[in-house]
């Protein structure tokens, strides 16, 4: 709070003026929209990748296990910022096609998240005792039917807490897409702060908005877990 802020007129740091926020609420709302759509799509992509890779890694034999293990280890060993920058600036050279900042952001964040979700799904699947699979197969189900209707639902219930934290982290991580100029909340805040010379108000508001998205999300997932946890205990 005691930080000096370069401002046209001389004023103290605690001189709070929220009028730039009120005047530019649409600009901030656009940012919020991008934050939600960017994180929403990257979560869909990441969870999709994680479900498929988690199931394949668990039941697909050693070749798939090794291949997917490589993807997981690789992506978990690289900073997400580096993945994002590489996806946006270097990956287009590989595919010979440029990406919009938004699609680059979704791709990078989704693929990154997918590596973590894969491991969570795998841990969930292997935690279900083998008798459940046997019982499903004994009814005449195919392995895929057994996984879909019997094993995976239980695994998802058990893995709701770690999945919930990954989802919240994904929302927060969407802020780094500001470096490739996706006009999401943080990026819009930066622009606005530069224009209005009101960084304190604007960045504080941005932090508050992140909190107001992430905290209820975490609590809701927690509540859902509490409600369903007994159903995942075989």
């Amino acid at each position, binding site marked *: 709070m005691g930080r000096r802020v370069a401002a046209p007129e001389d004023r103290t740091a605690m001189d709070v003026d929220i009028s730039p926020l009120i005047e530019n609420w649409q600009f901030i709302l656009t940012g919020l929209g991008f934050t939600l759509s960017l994180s929403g799509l990257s979560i869909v992509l990441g969870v999709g990748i994680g479900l498929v890779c988690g199931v394949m890694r668990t039941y697909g034999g050693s070749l798939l296990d090794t291949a997917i293990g490589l993807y997981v280890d690789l992506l978990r060993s690289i900073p997400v910022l580096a993945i994002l920058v590489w996806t946006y600036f270097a990956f287009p050279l590989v595919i010979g096609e440029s990406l919009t900042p938004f699609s680059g952001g979704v791709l990078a964040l989704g693929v990154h998240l997918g590596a973590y979700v894969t491991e969570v799904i795998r841990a969930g699947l292997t935690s279900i005792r083998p*008798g459940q699979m046997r*019982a499903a197969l*004994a*009814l*005449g189900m195919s392995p895929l039917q057994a996984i879909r209707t*019997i094993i995976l639902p*239980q695994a998802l219930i058990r893995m709701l807490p770690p999945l919930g934290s990954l989802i919240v982290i994904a929302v927060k991580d969407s802020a780094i897409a500001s470096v490739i100029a996706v006009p999401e909340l943080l990026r819009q805040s930066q622009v606005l702060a530069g224009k209005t010379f009101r960084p304190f108000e604007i960045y504080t508001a941005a932090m508050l908005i992140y909190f107001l998205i992430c905290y209820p999300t975490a609590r809701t997932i927690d509540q859902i877990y509490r409600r369903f946890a007994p*159903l*995942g205990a*075989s």
Partner: protein
Amino acid sequence: MITRAATVERPRIGSGAAPILRFEGVCKRYGPLEALAGVTFQVNRGEVVCLIGPSGSGKSTLLRCANALESIDGGRVILDGVDVHDRRTDARKLRRRMGMVFQNFELFPHLTVLRNVAVGPTTVLGMSPPKAAERAMELLRKVGLAEKASQHPAALSGGQQQRVAIARALAMQPDVMLFDEPTSALDPETIGEVLSVMKRLADEGMTMVVVTHEMDFAKRVGSWIVVFDHGKVVEQGPPRQVFEEPTVQRTRDFLSHLGWHGESLAASDLLVHSPSNTP
């Protein structure tokens, strides 16, 4: 004392027709361990075959090999003339014809009792949910648990869970029911309700293979007894013969280890029980 004269030799049930299930020299190894070392016996239609034998003798392994949950290393399992382990056989189709009941119930905890019973018909047979629910309800009534239909398995006692598991297996309308120690994980008070459901099933003519340590059940409900030891059949025959005049020393050792001394049992208390519907 048993008077030999009273023991009339009756022919084995179903011996006139081809057996529904036949094990021919079935071998199974786990690394160096020979879990099944050439098992041969058959199950006729309408029979209740009880498999008894010491722990680790391969009884569970045999049941898992019977419906191809486990591959085999030698011999054949024939279900109604079809080689279960043949590469050209659709194991999934055959499994529908064999209902399996596990020691630990293995009910699906995320599904209601009704859905546990209906999930086989809907996913495997493609039956419509209302029709499957109707069939499930009928079976739950049969095992005396209709009023638990909307609960989840965790809310049921062990005995109730096992009765649901029996209903779940019956929902596929199998030709043979395989039971792997269905009462071993139960509290003594609830064993009777499960055994009496099984007895009723046997009375209806269901073909059953029952791995059990309940010698009373084997003697009273079993129509054919197979004694296992070290992955082999050491003796088989009708209950009267196996329990009262065992010809093999290993059978005698096993029975006396269980405190069985060959005397004829009075009607077992366990089997007089009817399933209790009290919550």
